[in-house]
């Protein structure tokens, strides 16, 4: 566990006079800043990549940084950095009609819900900040926390677009949470543990001698569970084709219509952090976590981190691909997909996985 390791490291250094509480606080600050750096860098890079991917898919060239004033680097590489700086020096506007306290509180709840979920993600064999015995449950519980922030933002803005966006968004997120959780349970059946490292370790070795022994390949039911989870995950992060909450053509900007500057930036940051978490959970549960795709090849601490991040980035790119390929669903279609297709499918899948695991033993 990384926090314990960091505490020992602090205690052994010249900072040893801090004692255990001081070392703990210092360790958490180091780890927290690292995670925040990861979230921020991921958002900045992912926004740039997303714009480029979108541009290439639509036969454009995307941001190139040819404007007057701040030059955004070659190929527009610094475009999103410039955007972030712009957000920092933007005026913070709180509408006079808004509920001021809730308006201020909402970004905190949404961001914290995404931020603290990173604590339980196993980045490599030894790199996990808090190795809970209920890790997967913790991540699911904490990341659904964000809905409250979302509803608060929509309600507090006192804006019709915001309220509509927030209500639709909440309805969508809670609807897709159930198929997502049930598809994950199909894997927990086979592992018998909620610990993220235990789930990862259950996927070492190979199936049929060729494919890595990941849960996507292990049996047909976990294969299907992966797709159910991934579709529900895209819906939970409010991305196209499930981006009805922020459908620009209908709802202006959904629940964050009234937000500007840094508060808006944190909404955006938590959206990209949520993407990372959804992909991270999919990687740990279905794609073998930090394990190498070819068993025995390039293993170890650093390679573990590399494989984990590589798989997450791969899934994030697939999310972008999906976003720029499919049109947006209608609200009623969205609810139909969740309640009438994914939910029964996830249930039958769960039963299949149960029978499969009994039959094999």
């Amino acid at each position, binding site marked *: 566990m990384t*926090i314990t390791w960091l505490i020992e490291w602090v205690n052994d250094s010249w900072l040893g006079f801090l004692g255990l509480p001081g070392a*703990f*606080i210092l360790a*958490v*600050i180091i780890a*927290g800043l690292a995670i*925040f750096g990861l979230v921020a860098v991921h958002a900045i890079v992912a926004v740039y990549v997303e714009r480029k991917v979108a541009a290439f898919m639509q036969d454009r060239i995307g941001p190139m940084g040819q404007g007057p004033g701040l030059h955004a680097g070659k190929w527009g590489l610094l475009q999103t950095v410039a955007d972030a700086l712009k957000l*920092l*020096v*933007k*005026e*913070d*506007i709180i*509408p*006079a*009609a808004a509920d001021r306290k809730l308006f201020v509180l909402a970004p*905190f709840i949404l*961001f*914290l819900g995404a*931020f*603290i979920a990173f*604590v339980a993600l196993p980045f490599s064999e030894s790199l996990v900040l*808090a*190795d809970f015995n209920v890790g997967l*449950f913790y991540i699911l519980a904490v990341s659904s926390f964000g809905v409250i922030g979302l509803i608060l933002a929509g309600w507090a*803005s*006192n*804006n*019709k*677009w*915001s*309220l509509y966006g927030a*209500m639709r968004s909440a*309805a969508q997120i*809670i*609807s897709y*949470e*159930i198929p997502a*959780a049930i598809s994950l*349970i199909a894997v*927990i*059946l086979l592992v*018998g543990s*909620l610990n993220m490292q235990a789930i990862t370790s259950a996927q070492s070795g190979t199936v049929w001698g060729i494919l890595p022994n990941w849960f996507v390949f292990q049996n047909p039911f976990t294969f299907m569970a992966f797709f159910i989870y991934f579709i529900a995950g895209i819906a939970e992060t409010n991305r196209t084709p499930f981006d009805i909450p922020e459908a620009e053509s209908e709802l*202006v900007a959904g629940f964050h*219509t009234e937000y500007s500057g*840094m*508060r808006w*930036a*944190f909404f955006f940051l938590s959206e990209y952090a949520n993407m990372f978490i959804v992909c991270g959970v999919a990687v740990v549960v279905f794609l073998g976590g930090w394990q190498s795709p070819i068993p025995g090849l390039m293993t170890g601490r650093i390679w573990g981190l590399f494989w984990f991040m590589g798989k997450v980035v791969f899934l994030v790119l697939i999310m972008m691909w999906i976003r720029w390929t499919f049109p947006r669903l209608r*609200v*009623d279609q969205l609810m*139909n997909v969740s*309640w009438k297709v994914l939910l029964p499918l996830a*249930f039958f899948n*769960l*039963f299949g996985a*149960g029978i499969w*695991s009994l039959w094999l*033993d």
Partner: protein
Amino acid sequence: MYREYGTVLAFILLGAILLMVALWLQKLLAPSHPSKLKQSTYECGEEPEGSAWVQFNIRFYVIALIFLIFDVEVVFLFPWAVVFKDLGLLALVEMGIFLVILFVGLAYVWRKGDLDWVKLRVKFARGRYHRIAENNAKHKV
């Protein structure tokens, strides 16, 4: 064990502090000239008409209720899944009965049309969508 949850608590505090620092930086760097027009609620450039805090469509409430039932069930499923391998067939059968009962509920809700976004299949109080449809049929619009 406690150290893990302590880490989470410390992360909550740290995340809140980071956000506050960002907002404080913005306060230092960004201009602030509030005006009445700037602080008015956005409504496509028009004067905002009334408050947004109105009574909302009941369909969201129905979805919240269905969600609540299924979410509680998911909470039951988690511990069941963890010990599933030790209990074997008995656990599968028992959970099967539990889920079938719930599924009857889902089928009922489905049949009643509560899963549809626009509920047309209603017995009493047929709703305005139906009235619109009937009017349209009557006047051949």
